[in-house]
């Protein structure tokens, strides 16, 4: 057969892909467990996380991500409606700097995803987290590249239906346990997230990451005013503490005025 033929044969045998013999444990370079006989399998690396990062930040790591989430909440308070809602699509780059003793400022390049029209837009944003007691809310400035899609007609239609309607909206647990939302409740789910974004923006720090967990209850109230008025019980999730935070939120909405919060109050979580 010759040497070359032998090589070919060896290669072809290898190509079958599955060896018939057991792996040799003596061949330690092939065995993935070879470092693992000690009980504590650790190497010490320079401590991180104690001192919050400054300068260029890794956009995948939590300091940039938490700041970017605050921008999402800000965009929803500013531009959100029953037919417009933002999610955080990606963080492209981030830097942070201390501002004397007053706090820390993050500068971010992000992509925001407008969920209902399914469009992504790039934004640049500044988030300032103030220092000191009592804890203050962050301050956000953001500018996004595209004009927002016009949702006026849909908003007007929704507004009219519930302004004139004979029955007031009342709903619980949106989404339900299986993640289901009735189609005619969708705009109120969006509206609830927008309203809750005021809370999430207000409460955010460098040590929180808020998302909406669920609308426990939303009830439309009678009102003499132009705007629709809602009383609600919102459940927010903080990824850092893993807690579900319960908030009572009284807010109004109209196409002209957007969402305005009248009262917000955290309530204790039930003990069970």
């Amino acid at each position, binding site marked *: 057969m010759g040497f070359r033929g032998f090589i070919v044969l060896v290669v072809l045998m290898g190509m079958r892909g599955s060896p018939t013999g057991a792996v040799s444990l003596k061949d330690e370079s092939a065995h993935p467990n070879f470092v693992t006989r000690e009980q504590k399998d650790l190497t010490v690396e320079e401590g991180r996380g104690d001192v919050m990062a400054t300068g260029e930040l*890794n956009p995948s790591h939590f300091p940039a991500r938490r700041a970017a989430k605050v921008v999402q909440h800000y965009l929803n308070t500013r531009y959100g409606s029953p037919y417009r809602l933002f999610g955080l699509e990606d963080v492209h780059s981030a830097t942070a700097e201390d501002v004397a003793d007053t706090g820390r400022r993050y500068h971010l390049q992000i992509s925001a995803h407008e969920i209902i029209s399914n469009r992504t837009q790039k934004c640049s944003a500044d988030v300032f987290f103030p220092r000191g007691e009592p804890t203050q809310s962050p301050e956000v400035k953001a500018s996004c590249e595209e004009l927002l899609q016009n949702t006026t007609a849909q908003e007007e239609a929704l507004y009219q239906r519930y302004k004139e309607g004979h029955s007031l909206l009342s709903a619980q647990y949106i989404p339900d346990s299986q993640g*289901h939302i009735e189609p005619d409740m969708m705009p109120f789910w969006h509206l609830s997230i927008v309203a809750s974004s005021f809370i999430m923006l207000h409460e955010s720090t460098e040590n929180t990451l808020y998302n*909406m967990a669920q609308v426990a209850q939303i009830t439309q109230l009678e009102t003499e005013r132009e705007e629709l008025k809602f009383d609600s019980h919102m459940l927010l999730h903080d990824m850092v503490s893993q807690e579900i935070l319960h908030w009572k939120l009284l807010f109004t909405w109209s196409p002209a005025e957007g969402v305005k919060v009248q009262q917000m109050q955290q309530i204790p979580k039930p003990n069970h």
Partner: protein
Amino acid sequence: YDYYKYHPMDEWMAQMVMDYPDVVTIVDYGQTYEKRTISLLKIGLESEKRKKAIWMDCGIHAREWIAPAFCQYFVKQILQSYKTDTKIETMMRNMDFYVTPVLNIDGYMYSWKDNMTRLWRKNRSPGPSGDCYGTDLNRNFDANWGIGISFNCSSNIYCGSQPVSEPEAQAVTYFVGSRKDDILCFLTIHSYGQLLLVPYGHPNFTAPNYNELMEVGLAAATAIWNVHKKNYTVGASPDVLPNCGSSRDWARMQGIPYTYTFELRDKGEFAFELPEDQIQPTCEEAYSGALHIITYAHDKTFSGAAVTAAASFWSVLLAAGVARVNLMSS
């Protein structure tokens, strides 16, 4: 696909054994606080050699319903594939798959009770004074226990009265601990966040194979993206989501080389109440990611030389089936 489709879980597990008697057995390996039996499905083909193993657990946190759904999907997928997919068949011959569909059974069942319990996370053991319930099982393992968590019983990250105080954590510790030399992969499935996390949760410690874990993780994330274009962020826990006392960290400390936490969909839009129409696509993409890691671990163990590593690459490429993995990308 719906969340209730394969409930009750123990009946579904028994059905799997009935449908695939040569390949599946149920192993009972512990008890929950409320005295329910904790079981896994052991899946593998008969072999005379000593086999290696893959560990997967779902539902350590009660409210993360997509996770048990994924374990069930994973089981059905490998059982439906192994007869036609030679790669899967080979892996089943060389390795056993230990899959626990729901680890925190008490918590999971509690989260099904009514609207007010849906967002429960912990187990159901009573706290020290009996007026608060539940320990976070994923803070209860003996791995840098007690750092960066809460000692307050009513906290959702309460780590327990001491390391491995909880029967559910004890069950895993005993079962995996007594087989640690044979286990190649320890995958623990959670939601939400779209993340693949590598050890360790404590910022001062790095796994010796951190670079490899990241490389394999990034390739798995690419495999995930290839399915439905969902981005999963890969990173070490302290950089992305710090925690201590986790089952993943404990497993890595035992010497199990490839340990990952999967955080499935979404990124906060529906959070824990992921809609049922997303169950299938989420499972499909996660399967692709998990299979990449498992295949890597298998191939690294069961090849002695570069030739067979190349052969594995070809056989994975050629293998029909769900994987659609791209090993060359990072």
